[in-house]
């Protein structure tokens, strides 16, 4: 009983701060963001001229892809699911294995990876320099066209893609009626069972690394080991954000789980070592749906 008491006590103290709402607005340079948007939708940046950023980070699919693995240039396919590009401004770590610390840094991989653009900055600089309209726009915003400014322009656009004012954020801001009783219950379970221990902060995730598979292990996944080559990093991933999670199926780094329910059950089983009742899964699922919101800058 003492444990329970302590647990409830601590929740009541810290629960308020465990998740924070997304700010209503974010500062960004409109002109540079517009340039970044043009680049985001421009398939000429990729090797075969068929794939743009937007091909996999589909804005109609909440900035993610509905396929487990997206097709890159010349139809190449890698091993990671395309995550949402929304709310990246509030991320701490980027990429599935958390090997990038900023939006700009994160974008190097999709541009150069043979599974994605299979392109190079030389190619992109050349393309922009030869396109009069684009070149003009570019030089209006930056003194020169190089790797640095290309990344900056793209990052400026991505920075602008935020989804504030979800019903849950309204609830956090004090509107008790913004979410239903079920959703409130779901949130309580989310905390009580410890989901919150990894999924916290503005993005309900995306601020720490964790091993995928604590009580049960998944075989054959390198995870962060790919980046650090440290044994302790085998199977370790960046905890993903749960913002707009109901809109970004399929799930996990390899996109192998199709539904939100399955994902919730799997997480409880693998990470928490507990078995959730159907009702609990349903309630958590409802809570997660209250995190959905629309992009403000379109």
């Amino acid at each position, binding site marked *: *009983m003492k*444990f*329970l008491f*302590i*647990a409830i006590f*601590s*929740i009541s*103290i*810290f*629960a308020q*701060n*465990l*998740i*924070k709402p997304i700010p209503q607005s974010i500062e960004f340079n409109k002109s540079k963001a517009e340039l970044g948007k043009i680049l985001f939708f421009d398939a000429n940046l990729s090797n075969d001229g068929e794939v743009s950023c937007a091909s996999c980070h589909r804005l109609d699919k909440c900035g993610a892809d509905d396929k487990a693995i997206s097709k890159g240039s010349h139809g190449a396919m890698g091993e990671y699911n395309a995550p949402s590009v929304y709310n990246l401004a*509030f991320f*701490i*770590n980027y990429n599935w294995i958390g090997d990038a*610390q900023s939006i700009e840094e994160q974008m190097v991989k999709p541009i150069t990876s043979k599974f994605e653009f299979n392109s190079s900055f030389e190619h992109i600089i050349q393309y922009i320099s030869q396109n009069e309209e684009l070149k003009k726009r570019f030089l209006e915003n930056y003194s020169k066209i190089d790797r640095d400014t290309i990344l900056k322009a793209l990052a400026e656009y991505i920075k602008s893609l935020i989804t504030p004012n979800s019903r849950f954020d309204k609830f956090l801001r004090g509107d008790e009626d913004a979410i239903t009783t079920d959703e409130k219950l779901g949130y309580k379970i989310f*905390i*009580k*069972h*410890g989901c*919150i*221990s*990894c999924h*916290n*902060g*503005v993005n309900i995730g995306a*601020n*720490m*690394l*964790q*091993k995928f598979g*604590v*009580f049960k292990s998944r075989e054959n996944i390198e995870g962060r080991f790919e980046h650090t080559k440290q044994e*302790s990093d085998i199977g*370790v991933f960046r905890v993903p954000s749960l913002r707009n999670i109901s809109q970004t199926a399929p799930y996990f780094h390899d996109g192998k789980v199709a539904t939100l329910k399955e994902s919730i059950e799997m997480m409880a089983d693998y*990470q*928490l*070592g*507990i*078995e959730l009742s159907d009702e609990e899964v349903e309630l958590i699922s409802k809570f997660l749906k209250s995190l959905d919101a629309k992009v403000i800058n379109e």
Partner: protein
Amino acid sequence: MNRTLKYSISALVVIFVIFFFNIHKNSNRITQSFLDSALIQKIDKLNTELNREIIYIKHSTFTNYDNLMLLIKSIKEHLDILKRQNPDLYDCKYMEDVKTMFEQKFTMIDVVRRENSILKNSMQFMPHIVQKIYKNIDSKEILLVIEALRFELKYFIQSQDRAFLSKIEQMLSILESNDKNLNSHFKSFKLHYQNILKNMPIQAKNIKKLQSINIENSLNRVLTLIKEGRDLMIDKNKKFELLSLTFVILMSLVIFIISRKEEKYHKSYIASLKKDSLTDDFNRASFIKDIENIKDIERYMILSFDINKFKFINDRYGASKADELLIYLSTALAELFSYKIYRVSSNLFNIIIPQSAKLHNVKSDIKTIVNSADIDFDLSISLYHLNRRDNYSTIHNNIQATLYSAKLQKSNKIVTYSESDKNILYYENLSKNSTIERNNLVKAIEQRRFIIFFQPIYDIKSKVTFKYEVLARLKEGDKILPPFKFIQIAEEFNLIGEITRLIIDQAFLKASQNPKVEFAINLSGKDLEDDSLIDYINEKSKELKVINSNITLEITETEAISDLKESLDFINKLKKSGFKFAIDDFGVGESSLRYLKELPVDYIKIDGSFIKNLENSKSDREFVKLINEVIKLYGKKSTAEFVENQAILDILEELNIDFAQGYFIGKPDSELLA
């Protein structure tokens, strides 16, 4: 003086700039060090906040990690700022410690966070599963075991004593049931229980390790380092400031003193420009200026006093006595006349006086002055009435002419300038003529009207002619003028060098066309002072491919010995290139024989005055014989000039003279006649 001032000011400026630069540099460093300190303090503050977040991780069940991660990001950014702001500090030993420790800390935070989630979740879940078990069983024994296990876990967590573990294992093994549902609860309980058992010590150790990373100390050490450096620089700057202040004051003082001296010097210099330093009379410059400034020039006249034979006085009584005379005369004139006295040259005094001035008594007064002097001297005195068109030059010339006339008349008489004065007229024509001759000569040089003639030199022993003396001639209209018509004027007006060059040009051309013939070219005494002539001769000979040993350069004995050192220099330099030298007109100088030894010449030409009467004068014969023996004694060859008949030539042969030239041998001609 002026230079000292310049150097002083330059030194002041340079040293001031150095000081200023150093102070400025140090000031920048000091400012920089404050910025560095602020940055390190900021990092320290961020680190303290990070420590607070770590305490949250340890003590709270769940934490929002956003803040923690933003702190880490901020620390990294601040370290980057330091790297840009002060790379040296960023790479210093203490900062290396700080960076390493931060790296460790960040890594440990990630590890602790991972473990914390897993551990806290199990602990969180524990009461939940116990509740479920309670709901499903009545067995008091099992309940007691579970209660016991929970207390054991509590003790274990508090004490970290592994002695509890064996007992715990035993108790856990009791938790088995045939009820499938209950068994799954047991299983879950055991899973989380063991998870806590396994991870709690690890987590405790990790947290301890994390908290033992003491970055504060290292940051403090960096701060101390910065402060020590700063104190040192502040101290240094104080010293610099004091030094530079002292220096500036000192140098200003020096400059002040120098400029004061300079000012005084300048004033006296200006005065000296107007006045003569010896007699304190006004000088020639003042005279010219005053003449120019006179308005009604016709109303004035100039009285001039020239000490006769002043050079002789100088030589006889010495310079200081002569100076005394000048001062005496100047003082006497100043007493006599109430006008400015101008000393326009060494022994010429001018006075500008109005036409109206009475000069009746001047003559007797002058007599008194002359008679009461220590030294015997007399004066030439001229009076010149100024005309409207006069300028300094005409005034000067007319005064000179009048003084010339005065010198020819009785001493101490005042001669007035008059165009009808015979002597004045003569003097004026004389100076006018030489000016005309000079202009003619300049024109002749410009028009290259100098040509050369050749007079054969006969080898008495082998009875052949293979050498010619080159003689200069000036073409003027139809006439061809011999050297004595132009050489003296050319030497006076310094034109001889150009004429010599024109002669050399033509002689060398002839020599290059006749490589088997030798030529003797005459040089003037002035030529020996002209170093550039040596280069000219060498270059010209190279240009025209002249065989230098075919060329003999002739100089007169008088000229050669007038500045022996210079002549030797000139001769030796050209002898090095292979040219030969001859002494012309030998025998007329006073101490000829001595110079035979000293001058490194090849030929000696015995003056014609000893030769032309050779057949009639026994003493000339004896003299030539003697001279020739001496010439031979010094290993030189002899030439006789003015050989005008066969009898002379026979005697020369008998006397063993080497060469002969003269009208009998051959007259000068524009061609090489043998």
